[in-house]
């Protein structure tokens, strides 16, 4: 097995096993996997296979908006990962991103051509700042980023709730006032095109982010030094690279991707800032996306669409009597199988070598 095919094949095996396991659970709790898969197909294509092949493009729109933020948080996890960092912080970076987007939306008065880029920029910078803190602590004090980013997630969560409730004066203890039209990514044209879905221009920054990710990592000298640091920090330092600066920058860029996701949600999917009862798990979705996508832009795009499809199918499943949490179960098991790929590979290799050995034995 070459390295390249392995890189594509292993996630596919994991996805397959995840769906298999999900189906088994659905069957063993007395539900039908057929309705589960038909819900998924309907979520992507808008076609209802079960009830008379009716077509509704609204589902496609919803599928795309579900994919957008998790592609961005996937890029966030992957970017840090390429520098050898394990950042679980996308959740919190997204939260401060959406908080910054909310602030700029409510406090700045400007025409849309200025307001929207300003909103995106603010979210991006806020995410970068929030991601930069664990980066700085790692670089300066060698504090492990896993624990710090987890802690930062909770701090961001409570900070968001505090600000929404106390500073922006939420009307109903849940959300802020509506944003002005000039700050929104929403467009009636896109909505009517998809039969009233929440589809919005958020996919433009998502595509730009994917391209930027791939370009920085693979084509630039900066990307070269990030990868060197990621593979072997000490060797990079011996070669004179600024390891600490790279760690901070990498965490900041990762944070920027996640912060952008915050703006895409508040100013695209919704049009108000929200106080949350619990975090929504976009950050963890992003980890799943990046792992399945093998930390490559193209892989992240596909994995993001896959998990976006699962999320979009949730209400459809629920209406079919399948508890929508099956999606979380499938997603978790896919991640688990990806994590196990080294072991799965070992098993496959062992089987292959046994086969070879017996073939050789036959020749003698």
């Amino acid at each position, binding site marked *: 097995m070459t390295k390249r095919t392995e890189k594509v094949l292993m996630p596919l095996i994991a996805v397959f096993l995840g769906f298999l396991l999900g189906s088994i659970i659905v069957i063993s709790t007395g539900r039908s996997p057929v309705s589960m898969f038909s819900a998924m197909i309907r979520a992507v294509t808008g076609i209802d296979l079960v009830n008379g092949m009716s077509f509704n493009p609204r589902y496609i729109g919803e599928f795309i908006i579900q994919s957008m933020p998790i592609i961005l948080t996937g890029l966030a996890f992957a970017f840090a990962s390429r520098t050898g960092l394990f950042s679980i912080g996308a959740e919190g970076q997204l939260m401060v991103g959406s908080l910054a987007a909310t602030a700029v939306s409510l406090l700045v008065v400007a025409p849309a051509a200025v307001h929207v880029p300003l909103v995106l920029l603010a979210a991006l910078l806020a995410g970068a700042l929030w991601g930069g803190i664990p980066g700085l602590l790692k670089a300066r*004090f060698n*504090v492990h980023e896993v624990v710090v980013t987890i802690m930062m997630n909770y*701090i961001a969560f409570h900070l968001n709730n505090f600000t929404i409730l106390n500073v922006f004066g939420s009307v109903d203890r849940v959300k802020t006032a509506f944003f002005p039209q000039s700050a929104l990514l929403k467009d009636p044209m896109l909505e009517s095109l998809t039969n009233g879905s929440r589809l919005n221009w958020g996919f433009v920054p998502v595509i730009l982010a994917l391209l930027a990710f791939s370009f920085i990592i693979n084509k630039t000298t900066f990307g070269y030094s990030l990868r060197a640091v990621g593979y072997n920090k000490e060797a990079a330092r011996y070669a004179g690279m600024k390891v600490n600066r790279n760690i901070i920058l990498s965490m900041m860029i990762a944070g920027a991707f996640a912060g952008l996701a915050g703006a895409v949600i508040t100013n695209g999917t919704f049009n108000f800032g929200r106080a949350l*009862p619990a975090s929504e798990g976009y950050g963890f979705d992003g980890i799943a996306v990046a792992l399945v996508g093998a930390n490559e832009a193209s892989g992240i795009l596909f994995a993001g669409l896959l998990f976006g499809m699962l999320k979009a199918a949730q209400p459809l499943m629920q209406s079919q009597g399948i508890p929508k949490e*099956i999606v979380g179960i499938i997603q978790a*098991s896919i991640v*688990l199988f990806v*994590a196990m790929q*080294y072991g799965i590979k070992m098993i496959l290799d062992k089987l292959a070598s046994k086969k070879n050995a017996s073939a050789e034995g036959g020749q003698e």
Partner: protein
Amino acid sequence: MKATLILEMFPIALMFASPIIIAALGGLFSERSGIVNIALEGIMMVGGFAAASVTVLLEPSTPLAPWIGLLVGIAAGIAMSLLHAFASINLKANQVISGTALNILAGGVTIYLSQIIFHQQRTRSFSNGIQKMTVPGLSKIPLLGKMFFIENYPTFYIAVALVLITWFLVYKTPFGLRMRSCGEHPQAAASMGINVAGMRYIGVLASGALAGLAGGVMVLTADIQYTIMSIHGTGFIALASLVFGRWNPFGVLAAGLFFGFSTALSFYAKDITFLAKLPSEFFYMLPYIFTIVALIFFAGKSVGPKAAGEIYDSGKR
């Protein structure tokens, strides 16, 4: 005035501290054996769900329902941690990724099963969880009696007992020596004939049992039913306590008490004049901020088990 307020805070602080301490001890076993377990949160959710469900279902037939619930919570935690053990020990999975997967899985499984069993997004509420108790005799001790032995949840005594047991096991017995050697230098352990994989299984399953128990304790003392919010990050605070307590059972006890009190403070802040102005979110944030500060403070001193998180390959010599 203030003194009575502090005394009043004790039962509630100890209530919050207990699950933190118990789960952190779980983390201690796992990491001391060499496996990082960030799935404490998820395992607590599963344990809490199992304990709450069993309590609801058995309540009509036996007054022991919550205690049976705790036992089932332990079993559920073990089952959950078995996945982590298999993935990270047998299949050499990255332990942080595997833990993350379990955290996602826990949210899915518990609510999925709630829907199947109770036809709603949460378990039904139980009428009686674990009851507070006053320890006869000990409660008469001046001050200490009021702090620890009047109207407290017995789960706190369980937590303290577990701290002592853990300390004894880890530092005094051959088992502890062997387990710690697996977390520090598995190749050395293996060369002395110790079954590294076996020890790590014990470590991870112990963490599952304890985190499962912690989840049950938490739901049956601080809640009236299991919901997706019941654990709300306590597993991560337990993880923080482990770091804060420097992987030592008594350190964990102190850190758990500290975080228990800081949680309790958020409830009592409105009664304390100089704290009343602070928003409750501030108190929610405190444990996390303190943990980061502690990490900076300990920076450079390697205090955790050296091999924790590393994939152990018996072929590597």
